[in-house]
């Protein structure tokens, strides 16, 4: 029994390796705010969504300063604040960056190895741009090597 407890304690650590942040402009795309006509559906409250981007086994930074009436990033940490019923496609439209099966921000891939999306750790099989930005959604987009996605992100209070 002691051995079992020791095994449980030993395996309770944090064994998984981090993914490094990429170097160069492709991995650090600039903030932009395109004049996209979005309606916030009368929703006055901002809610938090977390988006992670990975390309070529590196982190792509989502910059602070992407702004519209219903979407904004105030920190470069992947937290998007959303009002109304918005989708991931809306966010990329405001940002002015590509998102499709073969394009993710400045990166391209071939149809045989498309951009993959995960919501709360589960593979999203529908259109990438249709992913709903629900409160506390944890969304991961990947191009290239598979990085097992996180299911949970802890949001700041009030989001």
């Amino acid at each position: 029994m002691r051995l079992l407890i020791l095994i449980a304690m030993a395996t309770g650590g944090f064994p998984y390796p981090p993914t490094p942040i990429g170097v160069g402009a492709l991995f650090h795309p600039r903030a932009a705010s395109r004049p996209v006509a979005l309606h916030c559906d009368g929703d006055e409250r901002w809610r938090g969504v977390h988006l992670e981007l990975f390309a070529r086994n590196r982190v792509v930074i989502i910059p602070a300063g992407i702004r519209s009436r219903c979407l904004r990033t105030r920190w470069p940490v992947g937290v998007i604040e959303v009002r109304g019923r918005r989708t991931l496609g809306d966010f990329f439209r405001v940002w002015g960056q590509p998102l499709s099966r073969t394009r993710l921000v400045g990166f391209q891939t071939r149809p045989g190895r498309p951009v993959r999306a995960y919501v709360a750790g589960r593979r999203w099989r529908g259109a990438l741009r249709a992913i709903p930005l629900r409160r506390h959604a944890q969304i991961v987009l990947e191009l290239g090597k598979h990085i097992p996605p996180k299911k949970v992100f802890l949001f700041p209070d009030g989001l």
Partner: protein
Amino acid sequence: MLLRRLAPLVGIVALVALPAARADADPASDILYTQRIYLPFFSGKVSPEHAQTLKQVVDGAWANGYQVKVALIAGDKDLGGVYQLFGKPQEYANFLGRELIFLYKGHLLVVMPQGFGVYRYQQSTAREQTQVKGVPVAEGPDGIADAASLAVAKLAGLPKPDIAASSGSSSSGTPAWEVAAIAVGGALLIAGMIAFGVLVLRRRRA
């Protein structure tokens, strides 16, 4: 023989406790690749005077030739998707340092209410860890900021900074009841797994 009998249980424990390699989602890495200091803003805030003291000390360290970046982690929310590392400053320092390796290879200091973690790419930090071990960490984000100021000054060989009186009024992240609930829940989960494993073993014997 013993190992064979234990195999099902070990498998169950490993499945629950050992996640595969994962993506990272900690806010500090996204700030520190351009900044020298990550101040907690998801788990309470450092007051401006304490933040200013820390900035002066860190800037002084760089001016003195000691490159250091500092992450203040006041609560689990400041770790975002790697909240499991809250309370493990050294483990998080190792994790954070490896996220930044292509952009920064100097010293990295992590401060949590539980203590310090120090990392430097491909270098031992045993000496630095010993140096900061005795530095007290007071309660709240201001307390963590003050501890960081003292630790950086010590590491960089700077005079002890004049720490403003910590108000202790800032929020200190995870409440004690939440930590206790997580601890009890974890213990129950492990106990359940062990009981299940014993049951499987008994059935095999029968």
